[in-house]
């Protein structure tokens, strides 16, 4: 995983781009992105691809569940946890 310091900022930027949010409008970090209608199923696919590219890690399909990806907050928590796991498992 790439040594990204501002995980929340990266996630926020990717979601904002995909959701085509107005630059003056910020997306609430706790808001469910899918029920609100920011992203559809293709958007979800693009989101995963962009996150994998930005963080330099493959997200296993089993991790792609609501608790990890429903909001900017959930994704931030997920990638922070994943970074810790990877650092802990380093030889």
């Amino acid at each position, binding site marked *: 995983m790439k040594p990204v310091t501002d995980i929340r900022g990266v996630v926020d930027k990717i979601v904002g781009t995909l959701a085509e949010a107005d630059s003056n409008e910020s997306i609430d970090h706790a808001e469910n*992105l899918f029920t609100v209608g920011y992203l559809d199923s293709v958007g979800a696919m693009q989101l995963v691809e962009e996150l994998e590219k930005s963080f330099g890690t493959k997200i296993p*399909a089993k991790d792609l569940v*609501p608790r990890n990806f429903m909001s900017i907050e959930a994704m931030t928590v997920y990638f922070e946890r994943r970074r810790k796991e990877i650092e802990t498992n380093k030889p």
Partner: protein
Amino acid sequence: MNPNPQQEALEAVHLARELGCAIDRPLAKDDKESNFDREAWNRLFDSEFIHGFLPTEYGGKAWSTRTAVSALEAFGESCRDAGLCLGLSSFVWTILPPILSAASKSQARTWLSEIASKRLIVADGVSEPQAGSDVMALQTKAIRYKDGYLLSGHKSYIGFAPIADRILVFARIDGAEGPWGISTFYIPSDIPGIIRSPNRDKQGLRTLPMGNIEFQDCFVGEECRVGEEGVGLSLFNEAMQWERSFILATQVGAMKRQLDQCIEHARNREQFGKQIKDFQSVSNRIADMRVRLEQCRLMLQHCAQLKDQGENIALQSSIAKLTISEAQFASSLDAVRIHGAKGYLSEFEIERDLRNATGGLLYAGTSDIQRNLIAKLIGL
């Protein structure tokens, strides 16, 4: 990973070719009557061909993606039964990936050993009257009930539906909205509440039965759920990458067989005192068929290589599906043109490729859907 990939591929292709030749038979009658060859299906398991696609921890040979694709291409070249080829490919690319990705070790061991030992047929229960590639629109519900779920809804255009032994069902957990609301269940096809239609007649791929499945408050235990709640969309997207990239691998083999047949015909058929290969309209058409075959092969191997490297190939998979399905359709029409009346009559088994190729333009996402995805994935 196999330390000798070339040897692995050679052995796999040899096995595929031998098996394909052993299974191959004239198909005009079975095609007309829509007969599925269960005996041939069983031979896929008895010959341990299927085992090539399974990981070693589940008794398989763990072929690389490149080997698997080469083997399927060889199988499709030697076996003319496109329905059987599609059934095999569906199992490899749409049923196995979700089980291997999300099922627990214990579930995977139980399910895969049972599939292999009993030579089971598993149907992929995604499509509904209003939901195909747009999986978020699916309406089949899973309502939490006691220590499991009650499934209710209607699946349509499901390959193997009338004869499947098991079904991989995609359903929306009641109350869960959006893409992460979809869950996946692996269930027997004969439990109470499941009603299956007879085979639905179709233009091509007639040796693979297709039908509807209805769930009427059908109870399934929690142990039938594949992965945790909400993982369904990811499993669908992952399977779609495999499916769109490689579902037509056997048909690239079929294109090779078709090309050889056209070359032979063009050399032997005479009109106006010369072989028809000497008419440039014919030879150019055959040259185009060869170009398409080369493009398809390269695309398959490129996608397989990327997959073996662990890459995300959402974009490439749509490009591959679009290219190969359209190429097969174009070449199948060319084959009919080259053979003339002989190409049009069912008894010579040339026009069947064209009918089968029409199906390829539709399943796993139509060409229109692939273009939409490609446009979106390149930022349009």
